């Protein structure tokens, strides 16, 4: 988007010098930019969410029964319902004003970052796949295999502090890479469509890990509960801000993974080949790039990044042992995160934190106001939908189209231009 719409703006402002005042230009830059679309998309999505909250609230329904005799009651009830829900969302994800000290008030923000950590890691994996033109829906399976291998190293192997963590981490990443690599290999060798194979491998991994937890090497001795033993203390991620906060070393790893992916995609030789294959595999083949090998490498790396998210859950977030439901939807959320981040590493990072905030705040909203956490899914998906369609947002807010004052440019998003 920035590429396709940035250039015409510059061209127009250059060819049309003095008649536009500085304010006019500034106004135009603000109203036609990408930032305003993102902000307005969030506002729109929250508005739709507010309508849903208001419509299903019992007080609002009661007050609407006598709307014509006391209309203020209805408005007050709507305000109470919506403001209550959204302030609970904010206080559960950023800063809680009801706590006495700053140290206690800022705790929700650290929760947000903890929730964001696996979303960023897995989102990077999916985004990497997108950049190579592959659709990796296999996040669930890759996370499970990573957790199984890395988790086993974490509870069954005895190693000194530090080394143990690294060993478990490496085992987890390798597990994810293995599960993703199968997909890449199948695509390269036999042409099997990655959408089918990743979906199928999700189920295979789920049942495999279920079996291992019930009767295999992941089983807790002497327990019928299909759950693994707790991770040993020598392998657990250290806390970043002390034991009162849940934020752990995994967030640093998420930052490192983002920097690595950014470097890989925009600075390395391999990343150049990745992007070339993603933009046009036929042209890439003509240019001498082995497309098949790139598919395998891309799925290995994509699976490895998602595996990092899986092992992060075992070594950082829930160290008391894991079940087969470990991924808890992160594998699929990661797709939305990657889409919202437009498959760019730092975009994914920001999108992951936003979604982490929604997750952290959604739980406290459900607990405090009784609004089901599913509303968060609605708001998240609407944000992605609106951001993907800038013309729609412009039409709703009657903003001028990008670039020109009169004539509308064809609305081509980056995803389309890439085809």
């Amino acid at each position, binding site marked *: 988007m920035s590429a396709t719409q940035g250039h015409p703006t510059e061209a127009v402002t250059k060819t049309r010098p003095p008649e536009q005042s500085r304010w006019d230009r500034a106004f135009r830059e603000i109203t036609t930019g990408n930032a305003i679309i993102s902000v307005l998309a969030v506002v729109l999505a929250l508005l739709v969410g507010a309508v*849903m909250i208001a419509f299903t609230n019992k007080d609002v329904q009661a007050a609407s029964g006598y709307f014509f005799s006391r209309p203020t009651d209805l408005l007050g009830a709507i305000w109470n319902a919506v403001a209550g829900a959204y302030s609970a969302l904010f206080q559960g994800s950023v800063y809680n004003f009801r706590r006495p000290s700053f140290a206690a008030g800022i705790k929700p923000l650290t929760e947000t970052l903890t929730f964001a950590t696996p979303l960023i890691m897995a989102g990077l994996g999916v985004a990497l796949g997108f950049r190579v033109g592959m659709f990796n829906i296999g996040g669930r399976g890759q996370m499970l295999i990573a957790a199984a291998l890395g988790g086993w190293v974490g509870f069954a192997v005895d190693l000194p502090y530090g080394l143990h963590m690294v060993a478990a981490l490496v085992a987890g990443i390798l597990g994810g890479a293995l599960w993703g690599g199968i997909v890449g290999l199948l695509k390269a060798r036999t042409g099997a469509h990655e959408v089918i194979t990743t979906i199928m491998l999700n*189920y295979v991994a789920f049942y495999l890990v279920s*079996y291992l937890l019930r009767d295999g090497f992941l089983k807790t001795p002497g327990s019928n509960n299909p759950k693994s033993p707790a991770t040993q203390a020598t392998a657990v991620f250290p806390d970043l801000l002390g034991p009162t906060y849940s934020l752990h070393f995994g967030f640093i790893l998420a930052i490192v993974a983002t920097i690595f992916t950014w470097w890989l995609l925009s600075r390395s030789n391999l990343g150049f080949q990745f992007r070339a294959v993603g933009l046009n595999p036929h042209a890439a083949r003509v240019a001498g790039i082995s497309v098949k090998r790139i598919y395998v490498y891309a799925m290995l790396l994509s699976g490895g990044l998602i595996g990092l998210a899986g092992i992060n859950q075992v070594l950082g977030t829930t160290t008391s042992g894991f079940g087969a439901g470990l991924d808890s939807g992160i594998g699929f959320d990661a797709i*939305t995160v990657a889409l919202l981040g437009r498959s760019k590493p730092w975009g994914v990072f920001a999108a992951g934190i936003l979604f982490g905030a929604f997750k952290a705040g959604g739980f406290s909203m459900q607990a405090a106001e009784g609004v089901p956490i599913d509303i968060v*899914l609605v708001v998240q*998906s609407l944000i992605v939908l609106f951001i993907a*369609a800038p013309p729609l947002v412009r039409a709703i807010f009657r903003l001028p189209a990008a670039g020109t004052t009169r004539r509308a440019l*064809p609305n081509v998003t980056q995803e389309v231009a890439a085809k």
Partner: protein
Amino acid sequence: MSIATPAVQPIQPAAPQDADFEVVRSWKAPIALSIFTVLSFLLLVVFGRTGISTFRLSTTSDLIQLPEVELPTQLTGIVISVLLLLITVISAWLVRSRARVPIWLIAVFAVLVLIGFLSWAAADKTIPVPGLLFGAISLAVPLIFGALGGVISERVGVVNIAIEGQLLAGAFTSALVASLTNQPLLGLVAAMFAGVLVSMVLASFSIKYFVDQVIVGVVLNVLVIGLTGFLYSQVMAPNAATLNQPPRFERINIPLLSEIPIIGPVLFRQTLIVYIMYVAVAVVYYGIFHTKWGLRLRSVGEHPQAADTVGINVARTRFWNVSLAGAIVGLGGAYFTLGSVGAFGKEMTAGAGFIALAAVIFGRWDPIRATLAALLFGFASNLQNVLSIIGSPVPSEFMLMLPYLVTIFAVAGFVGTSRGPAASGKPYIKS
């Protein structure tokens, strides 16, 4: 497989290989067959079991009662292994002499593997064949509707990842409307409307705003999961007695047809939705390949520019056909609430939409083949149910895994590079 590619590439590097014009030998089929033969030999003979496997072919209510078939387990295993080896050798010989391995040979192979496995698992036990097949159809119904919708949508050039969302929306609305009106038929109509609604969002975003279709599809799934989950917790669950107790369709026995041995009880003692499904498969197949509508639909999906040149309105064709696809998938969603389970539950489709998507690709964007693929998925899931009831020697997790493993093997071994409609997923920007 490695032989095939370099021979074709120098001539036309960009063109995907087409199986019909393949002159080079592809060893994929023999290799896959020999893997299955070795596995079957290991299971049936090396780890063979002794006893008698019984297959019950009739239900108690049938007019014509067939006797139960009793097979000695070990002997059956040996005979089937020999037959499998024979077929593998034939296929290798065919490939050596540059002939194609016929599809019926592979089908015979698959049936033999299946019989061998069933008799192995049912040593000294009885397998109710009609029950096995009946359950398979039941589980496959939503998958087939989903796959038909997927085929139409992709044939007209819009990738439909939102099948899952359309199914879920259909299930929710049909439960709601059928409970309120006490009319399952109205629930069915409402499910179609819900599917169309989801489809229209998909269509308008991808056709009018040129948003990437995969993005819209994925996001729509999340949106529908969120919407139905929210409304379920907020509205439906607190008033379950009035809003979530839909009447279910009654089973209709078709006279005469329902008395045919084996096939009758399986195919013709079903509910209305299943009969609609039979009609839908036939109509979609005939429509796509033998009518003007189908020709236009396919032309828009293969080469929109050419279609535009001869006067077909690409955007309108795409919009209405994607909406039609949504209506068909919505019917499949209604089956969850009005046909099988009875009440709506959160995320009750549980990934069926993605399996349907796999069936579309597995079936190479062909309605009949996609239906067969969906039936395979349904059969495999129900096989696990039946075997866990009669007590299977294999851990249940591995049985549950089997259909997915078979699909991976099949997609890698037999289907190969599956090529969808050329313009599927690409927006058409009129210049």
